[in-house]
């Protein structure tokens, strides 16, 4: 979070100055919300090399940019590494867009794309993205980058859910990787019985996306459109099953409550007190970076399901979006297309060693598989797990246009879990906050 806005506690300021600090810090950052539409299709054909700016945080991106710049003369990419979206990256992009100095191209996760589109920060690239190009991506990924019948971004990765677990700890407790959520609960009990300090996993109270992915997997649809109105169903029946299940695990102290990727969580992984992680394909590289000395001890299995049949939601997953006022939409898309659909682009990312993402373009999965070193997973063929998981991603999921509000309401509700709050009240308040926010923005909500 951008700490730099902080004014400092004004000790010796005058009464007037002290009362205005809050105002000036806001106004300084708010910027004009002017939405001047620049039509990307009318740009003149560039002569000579075009330099585009690009902001992103996905692992291995710097290597991709370098590989592109080394092999291309017509487009040069200037890359800036920014914090991940939820950790302040989105704030940075949105502020830059409001101030009129957004990069030409930026990474945005599927879940946040509608938010960025409704704020008017993303260029409509429908006329620049051919049907042939769209066909190169998984249909589920294309679906998520198409909003209101227009194309807004190119998908980088699909993020099928998978289950990471410490094989050695599971073996010691006599547990195998669970295939259903019931087995997950039993495994949690056995692991805890074998060592009272061991938990099977973590509920991240600061992050709403895992619950969304679980709801997606169970067949819920938090958002859908009916004509020109949104239907919001965060507290529906399928979501309730998921909520009750995780609530039970929390109540029985079978999983830990720790913020995502926090010092506490990392420490519990390092000590072997957290024996598994319900994540997504990209987690393979992240986990390897967090606990590099546990090489060979981890394995990856399909995510448990409700009925034992493969099913997955998407946890994260990034896209490349062109900013509204970019004068180089074509050049920016050229790089985005190269980075997402060519073997060279994927190879550069995976070979960095830090990324285990699952390309949204199925043709490139073999490239990714060949490039990722699996010694951390004891030589396991993890991409085969990803491929099966990718096939089982449920279609027809849509992210809402005010995910900032939805996620904030959910995380605020999760924060009360440690002091007697429930997941159920969290989804109820998220439902309420989201519908209220949509109505407030003048967006239609179907009842």
């Amino acid at each position, binding site marked *: 979070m951008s700490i730099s806005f902080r004014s400092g506690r004004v000790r010796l300021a005058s009464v007037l100055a002290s009362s205005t600090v*809050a105002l*000036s810090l806001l106004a300084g950052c*708010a910027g004009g919300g002017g939405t001047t539409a620049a039509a990307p299709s009318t740009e003149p054909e560039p002569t000579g090399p075009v330099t585009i700016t690009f902001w992103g945080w996905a692992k291995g991106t710097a290597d991709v940019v370098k590989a592109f710049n080394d092999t291309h003369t017509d487009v040069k990419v200037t890359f800036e590494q920014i914090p991940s979206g939820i950790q302040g990256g989105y704030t940075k992009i949105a502020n830059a867009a409001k101030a009129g100095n957004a990069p030409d191209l930026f990474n945005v996760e599927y879940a946040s794309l509608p938010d960025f589109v409704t704020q008017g920060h993303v260029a409509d690239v429908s006329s620049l993205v051919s049907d042939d190009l769209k066909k190169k991506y998984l249909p589920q990924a294309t679906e998520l980058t198409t909003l209101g019948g227009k194309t807004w971004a190119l998908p980088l990765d699909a993020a099928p859910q998978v289950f990471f677990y410490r094989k050695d700890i599971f073996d010691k407790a006599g547990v195998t990787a669970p295939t259903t959520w019931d087995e997950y609960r039993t495994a949690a009990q056995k692991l805890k019985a074998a060592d009272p300090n061991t938990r099977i996993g973590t509920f991240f109270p600061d992050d709403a996306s895992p619950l969304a992915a679980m709801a997606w997997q169970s067949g819920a649809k938090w958002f859908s459109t009916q004509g020109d109105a949104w239907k919001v169903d965060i507290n529906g029946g399928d979501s309730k099953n998921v909520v009750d299940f995780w609530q039970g695990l929390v109540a029985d102290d079978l999983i830990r409550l720790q913020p995502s990727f926090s010092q506490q969580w990392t420490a519990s992984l390092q000590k072997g007190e957290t024996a598994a992680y319900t994540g997504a394909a990209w987690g393979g590289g992240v986990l390897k970076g967090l606990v590099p000395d546990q090489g060979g001890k981890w394995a990856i299995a399909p995510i448990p399901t409700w009925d034992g049949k493969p099913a997955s939601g998407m946890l994260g997953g990034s896209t490349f979006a062109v900013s509204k006022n970019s004068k180089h939409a074509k050049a920016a898309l050229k790089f985005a297309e190269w980075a997402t659909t060519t073997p060279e682009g994927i190879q550069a990312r995976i070979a960095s060693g830090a990324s285990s993402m699952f390309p949204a373009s199925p043709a490139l999965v073999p490239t990714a598989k060949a490039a990722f070193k699996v010694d951390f997973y004891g030589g396991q063929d993890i991409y085969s797990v990803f491929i099966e998981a990718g096939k089982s991603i449920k279609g027809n999921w849509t992210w809402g246009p005010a995910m900032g509000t939805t996620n904030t309401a959910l995380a605020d509700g*999760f924060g009360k879990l440690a002091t007697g709050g429930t997941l159920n009240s969290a989804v109820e308040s998220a439902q309420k906050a989201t519908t209220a926010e949509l109505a407030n923005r003048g*967006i239609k909500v179907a009842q």
Partner: protein
Amino acid sequence: MTTVATRPDTARAAAPRRRGRPPGHSGAAGVLLAPFMVLFTACTLIPIGYAVHLSLYSERHSGLGFGVAETVFTGFGNYSRALADPAFVSGFANVAKYCALYIPVMIGISLLLALLLDSALAKARHFFQLALFLPHAVPGIIAALIWVYLYAPGISPVLDAMDSMGFQIDILGHPLPAVVNMAAWQWIGYNMVIFYAALQAIPREILEAAEVDGASPLRTALSIKIPLIRASLLTVVMFTVIGALQLFTEPMILQGSAPSVDSSWTPNMYVFTAAFQRNDNGLAAAGSVLLALVAAGLSFAVTRFGRSRAARAEGGMS
């Protein structure tokens, strides 16, 4: 014609007023004030005006919301939304609770330390003054990061040591004392210096008189010293309350490790969330204006209260 006729009149009318002042005085004041006025206008007045302007508008979409938004005038709509939002109001309640816990602890300890330094008992005064002031020299963000590290179970050496002795405390589950502790650590030394300076300014003959009358050091502190530095005490309380209203850094950093700190734990965090998570600049601006009004009102009340008390105290002395 008329303009020519009026000009000398104005000049004549202005002349007598200037006569009372030393020559060139107003010009010097203007020059000296100009840099302040320019900065004050650019950095304070214009942003306030802009925030007030923002607070009166909202973005409106239509249909699914993917089209271009229009900015519409909503009058006090954003203000009523903020005031009707329990999250905004609960932020003020948290600040009140924070003040109730923090002010007695912080004032009590810094006053005690100042009195000890001031008393004849203290050795190596300069060393303690510097040592106690040092925490204030650490930037708030860095201090908060270090404290969060010390609070986090599984990482904190302090908690580990306590754990091995059989004490288990969940600091992150109790954000209020956690934030109070961070703030107290940072501000005790600073306020102690203010109190110490005020104590040093007490005329020595009064203290000698107390000694001659047989007052114990404790009695001297309670009945002579503390009443005589009341003005400093009030000033510190006022700045602390205003600082508390703007509480942001510590809870924001703490939030990363303590999810019980929600997105609107203090009014400033509510404004931040509205602006940067929910992208609702109108609501954020309205929240800031309300926060500024509360701070201004509170400062006014404390200043008036303090001035009348100080005047009465001075009257009593002479």
